[in-house]
């Protein structure tokens, strides 16, 4: 399946923007993942074609970065950091609770397809609010079991971030209050995400 014209246009725009078209590879991979939810072999070939670069280069780059997914996953992506600072504040207990709640093992997707959950040794930059999780790249901090229940409840009802958006678009200037990713902050939902 060919990429949407808007995605292709975006990839070509990246190529014009950078001093070297090669620098557009990672932005192009993001644009693809934004449209499809993951990066397919066909999409890699298409990127190569639009950037006029060898397909092996796109593949080599893509495979290095852990955030580019190679297969479809649940509608929502939940990642829990279990590195040392988070473990000191109960990250393991959060993983145990969350997997039990979803009836899955670490790394799996819930039966209803709503949530893929994984733990990671990578610090996600929220150790001051540990235990934490990132839900579709938005921070949820100072978790309690009740808050986890509420988050999962919400995610079961919400569509995937990439399904909310019709076409990938440049990010418009935000109006109103300041951007916060803290637990209580206003969470822009879905539509401006570039997952």
């Amino acid at each position, binding site marked *: 399946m060919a990429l949407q014209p808007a995605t292709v246009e975006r990839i070509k725009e990246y190529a014009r923007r950078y001093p070297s078209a090669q620098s557009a590879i990672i932005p192009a991979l993001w644009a693809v993942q934004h449209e499809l939810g993951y990066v397919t072999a066909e999409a890699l070939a298409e990127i190569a074609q639009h950037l006029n670069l060898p397909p092996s280069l796109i593949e080599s780059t893509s495979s290095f970065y852990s*955030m580019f997914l190679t297969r479809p996953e649940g509608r929502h992506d939940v990642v829990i950091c279990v590195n040392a600072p988070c473990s000191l504040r109960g990250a393991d207990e959060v993983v145990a609770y969350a997997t039990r709640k979803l009836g899955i093992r670490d790394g799996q997707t819930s039966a209803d397809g709503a949530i893929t959950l994984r733990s990671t040794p990578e610090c996600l930059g929220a150790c001051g609010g540990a235990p934490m999780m990132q839900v579709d790249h938005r921070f949820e901090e100072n978790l309690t079991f009740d808050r986890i229940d509420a988050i999962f409840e919400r995610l079961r009802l919400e569509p995937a971030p990439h399904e909310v958006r019709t076409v990938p678009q440049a990010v418009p200037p935000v109006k109103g209050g300041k951007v916060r990713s803290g637990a209580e902050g206003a969470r822009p939902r879905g539509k401006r995400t570039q997952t």
Partner: protein
Amino acid sequence: MGLKPLLTKDFGREGLAHLQGYEVAGGYTGLKKALKEITPDDLIEMVKKSGLRGRGGAGFPTGNKWGFLPKGVYPRYLVCNADESEPGCFKDRYLIEESPHQVLEGILIAAYAIGCNLAFIYIRGEYLPQAEALEAAIEEARQAGYLGRNVLGSGFDVDVILHRGAGAYICGEETALLTSLEGYRGEPRLKPPFPAVKGLYAKPTVVNNVETLANLPHIVNHGPDWFAAMGTPTGKGTRLWCMSGHVNRPGNYELEMGTPIRELIFEHGGGIWKGRKLKAFQPGGASMMVLLPEHLDVGLDFDAIAKAGSMAGAGAMMVMDETTCIVDVARRLVKFFEHESCGKCTPCREGTYWMANLFDRIEFGEGKPGDPDLLLDMGYNIDGRSFCPLGDASTWFPRSVIKYFRDEFEQHISEKGCPFKKEREAVA
């Protein structure tokens, strides 16, 4: 000494994340002043005189770094390093969320000083709302004429491209960052040539951390002497410390350089949680050596922490109470390095993997007598033989805890498991 909000002074103010709010708080006066009154060369001298040192980890003097750019070679590039992935660090995220324009103003001032017309922000892929905040700030600044062609009528042209990474700690290392920005796998390059001479697209390039750059508007506004009056003889200004772990109030604290560690942990952090005692702490980030309660009076500054046997690194402060299993903490940090090793060189790729296995077996009750010495031996063989500092640094924390807590390793091995598990459960 003590709390000294400089970068964080206006944080929490309504609308600060947007141009208007930032201007109301005095934003962009530094850039205006620089463009109107100061020549690029004088600006470099000014930053040298201020004593500003990099906040990304190595503490390199910022003005000197700019001074290394070869004369007359253009184009030159500036990259703002917003890859923040050091375990225990969350200060760049805070600076970006609360005041993206402060970071951007710093970038524009630095670009003007070094004669760069195209700057990049390399931000880690996980920081999506933060990337959006920066993108919005760039657009607002463009509309207001702070970036683009002929900025504020000065004749200076500059553009900024926001570039999202995609999940690789090693891309915070400056040469790996540039390789990644060029579209390749994020593997480090050999130094020399240093980025200042041959960086992005083989052109002279400066890489500076978010916090380093956010200091610039203040140095321009208030002058280098004002800045140099804060801190210690070799550590000027303030620093954001990211406190995590077993304290009552974890979070970011901006303190004057040289403030005692005791004040950070016990006054600002509210002391150790649950009324427990302090066992140890790790300043700097995942790679840095452990310190003990006897080091509490050390000042928070590059040289004082180095003298105590650790490093200020990227401004983390992980605090551990008496119930902490230090073997497990080291195990998790080593696992992190194993996970993030880029695989380019053997000592790091194989060494971190082997160290991680050894830590697993000690923590989970299969350790053998002699394992601590084996770990030390591996440490000596990885450190100094790795291609980049990631491999070297993966050995520092484990070696330091074996030095101070060898008995706990022996106890894990003789009791075939973690002695702290029972203890923690009893306390809880």
